[in-house]
């Protein structure tokens, strides 16, 4: 399957930020998993931020990938937050109940500002 998802990882304090771009679908599995590995591989972040500001498409398989990342983070006692979701995908986070487990911020700056304090 063609890979049309890209990810950039960087640290902000106790958090690791994964900035996603393109399409989060079945083809994004390798990119997302590698990005998560990189994010938690150094510094043991307490929080992982998934930024979707440059994501134009998420399908059901992409939702499943996000669920897998969340499950792994929970097992490792890390918090996952999201930023930059469009109104439509924010609705999908609500419908699937992902937003019950992933705090959603309007943009990355808002998420990072909130994370400046100690992780809850």
């Amino acid at each position, binding site marked *: 399957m063609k890979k049309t998802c890209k990810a950039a990882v960087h640290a902000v304090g106790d958090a690791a930020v994964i900035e996603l771009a393109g399409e989060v679908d079945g083809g994004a599995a390798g990119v997302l998993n590698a990005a998560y590995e990189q994010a938690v591989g150094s510094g043991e972040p307490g929080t992982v931020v998934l930024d979707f500001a440059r994501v134009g498409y998420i399908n*059901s398989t992409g939702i499943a990938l996000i669920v897998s990342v969340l499950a792994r983070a929970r097992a490792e006692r890390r918090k996952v937050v999201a930023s930059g979701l469009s109104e439509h995908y924010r609705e999908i986070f609500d419908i*699937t109940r992902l937003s019950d487990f992933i705090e959603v911020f309007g943009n990355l700056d808002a998420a990072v500002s909130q994370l400046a304090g100690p992780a809850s």
Partner: protein
Amino acid sequence: MTSVARPAPRRLAAFAVPSEPGNERLALARVTEAVAASGLPPAQLERLKTAVAEATMNAIEHGNRGRPDIPVDVEVVQEGDDIIVAITDLGGEHAPGGPVEEPDLLLKLEGEQRARGWGLFLIRNMVDAMQVRTDGARHTIQLTMRAGAAAAAPVSQTGGSQGGGDEEDL
């Protein structure tokens, strides 16, 4: 009692896409183009796009088993305020005898349900009505979006002669 005649259905588009992974994007682009002048508000258009993509992906993967030589047929019709999209594969019953598992995020997070399984759930929650019918090998999922309707609430799936509750999930 007076009755108001509904406008005759108007076909906005009819096309086919080969059953290859990723072609759901092609279908949703064509449907988006077809309904551009229909007056569907942007939020509803986004919901329809998600439903069309998921239904087409289901038809490609589970209906036609990813065989490029078997097309997925898509028809877009406007009937009054309703936009109706019918997506047909040749897979007959997708999951005969197998009830669809309702996705439960907590169970998925605890590893008691597979992470996938959101496709049909998303479709149901995106559109105002969904109907599934099977006629021999032809398996059709019909999605209805009512222009100007409030945000779509989860719809009850209604079946045709067969297959009402047997749509295979993604």
